[in-house]
C-alpha cells in the first residue's frame, strides 16, 4: 500500500464494474470447463475401474501423483510447452479434478447393492443397459459429492493460474496478481473476496443439490 492510500477505494470499484464482471465470467469459465472435461474423463476411467478392478490401483496412483504436484509448479511447467494459452491452465485444472472425481464415482458404483444388480440381470438387462439405467442413477449422489469437491478445488486453483499466465487466463486471480504488482489493496482484496464468495457459494449450491436429490437422507434421525 502506498502512503496515504485508503485500504478500500470504493469509487475504483464503482468505476470498474464492467471489468470485475468480466473477471468473474472468466473465472466461471476456468471452473466449469475443467470440471466438465474432468468429469467425462473420470467417468470413463471409473467405468473401466469398476469393470476391471485391477486398474483402479494404477488409476488412483497416477491421478494421486498429479493431485500432489503443487499448483504453481503445475502451471509453470506447461507454459514453455503449451505456451500462453487457455490449454496451459486447463490441463493442470483438469488433472486436479481427476483423483477426486474417480474416487467418488467409483465409490458410487461400488455402493450399489449386489441384490439390485442381480435383480436388474434377472429382468434381462444387458450389462450396458444395467450400467445406464440402474448403476448410474444410483451413483449420482456420490458423483454430486465429488463434483462439489472438484468445483471448489478448481475455483481455488484457478486463482493461482494468473500468477504464471497473466492476462491469458484472466479470472479473479488476475485481479489479485495485478493488485499485488501495483500495490493496490482494493484490487487484490476484491479479487480475493470475490473468489472466496464464489467458492463458498459453489459449496453451498452443491450441498443444496445433494439434499434435493437425496430426500431420504433428510429423514428424521439421519440429518447430517
Amino acid at each position: 500500500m502506498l502512503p496515504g492510500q485508503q485500504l478500500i477505494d470504493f469509487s475504483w470499484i464503482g468505476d470498474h464494474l464492467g471489468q470485475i464482471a468480466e473477471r468473474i465470467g472468466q473465472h466461471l469459465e476456468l471452473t466449469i470447463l475443467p470440471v466438465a472435461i474432468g468429469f467425462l474423463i473420470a467417468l470413463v476411467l471409473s467405468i473401466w475401474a469398476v469393470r476391471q478392478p485391477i486398474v483402479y490401483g494404477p488409476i488412483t496412483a497416477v491421478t494421486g501423483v498429479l493431485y500432489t504436484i503443487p499448483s504453481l509448479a503445475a502451471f509453470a511447467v506447461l507454459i514453455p510447452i503449451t505456451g500462453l494459452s487457455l490449454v496451459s491452465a486447463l490441463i493442470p485444472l483438469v488433472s486436479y479434478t481427476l483423483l477426486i472425481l474417480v474416487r467418488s464415482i467409483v465409490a458410487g458404483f461400488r455402493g450399489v447393492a449386489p441384490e439390485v444388480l442381480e435383480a436388474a440381470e434377472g429382468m434381462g438387462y444387458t450389462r450396458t443397459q444395467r450400467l445406464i439405467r440402474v448403476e448410474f442413477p444410483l451413483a449420482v449422489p456420490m458423483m454430486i459429492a465429488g463434483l462439489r469437491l472438484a468445483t471448489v478445488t478448481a475455483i481455488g486453483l484457478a486463482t493461482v493460474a494468473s500468477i504464471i499466465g497473466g492476462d491469458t487466463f484472466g479470472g479473479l486471480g488476475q485481479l489479485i496478481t495485478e493488485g499485488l504488482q501495483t500495490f493496490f489493496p482494493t484490487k487484490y482484496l476484491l479479487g480475493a473476496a470475490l473468489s472466496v464468495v464464489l467458492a463458498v457459494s459453489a459449496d453451498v449450491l452443491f450441498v443444496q443439490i445433494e439434499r434435493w436429490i437425496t430426500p431420504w437422507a433428510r429423514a428424521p434421525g439421519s440429518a447430517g
Partner: protein
Amino acid sequence: MDSVVNWFLDPLNWQGSAGIPNRLFEHVSLSGAALLVAALIGLPIGLFIGHTGRFATAVINIANIGRAIPSYAVLVIILPVSLQISPEYGLNVIPTFLAMTLLAIPPILVTTYAGIREVDRDLVEAARGMGLREPQILGRLEIPLATPVIVGGFRTATLQVIATATIGAVVGGGGLGRFIVDGFSNPSLPAQLYAGVILVAGLAIGLDIVLALIQRRITPRALRGPLDRWAGPAEQASPADSPGMG
C-alpha cells in the same frame, strides 16, 4: 533439458541464501512450523468434538467452509493486517505462515473428528462399562483406533501447506517457490523455472509417499486395504475430504 541438468550441477546454486539447501530449508521449516501450530489447534478441537459430540455440527460446518476457501485469497487477505503488524516481515513470512496455518487446520480437525466418530460406539460403551474414565477411553481406545485416519488428515494438510508455501514466493516469501517465480519473471532463466518445478513437485510427492507409508504401517494389518491408495492422498469415506488445495 541439458540446461536444467547444468543448473543443478552449478555449485553456485548450492550455496548462499538463494541456494537450493537454504530454499529447501525455508520451505520445509515454514511448512513444519505451520503444521505444528495447526495440529496444536486442530487436534484438541477434533478430539473434543469427536469424543463428546458437542458442537460437532457447527465446528465441522465452519471447518468445511474453511476448506473451500482459495489459498491464494487467504494469503492476500492477510496482507494488509500483517503489513500493519510488521513492515519488515509483513510482506513475506507472516502472511505465508498465517495462511498455511489457517489452511492446515480444517483437514486436521475434520479427519480427527471423523476418525474418532468411526470408532465403534459399542466398544466405547464396553470400555465405559469396564470402568474406564473418559480421558482413558479417549487415550487408550479412540485415539489408537483413529490414528490411521488422523495421519490421513496430516497428509492432506501437508500437501496444502507445501503448495501454499510455494505461492508465498509471490508476496516475497522464500522457499522453493522463489525459483519458479524468479525463473518466470526473468525469461533468460528457464532452467531455474524447471529446476524449481522439479524441486517443489519432488518435495510434495516425496513427503506424500513417506506419510502414506507411515499411514500404512500404523494401520492394523486386518484393516489395510489393497495397495491402491499408495500414492494418492488420504482416502476418505467422507466426501468432506480435501477441497481447496493450494
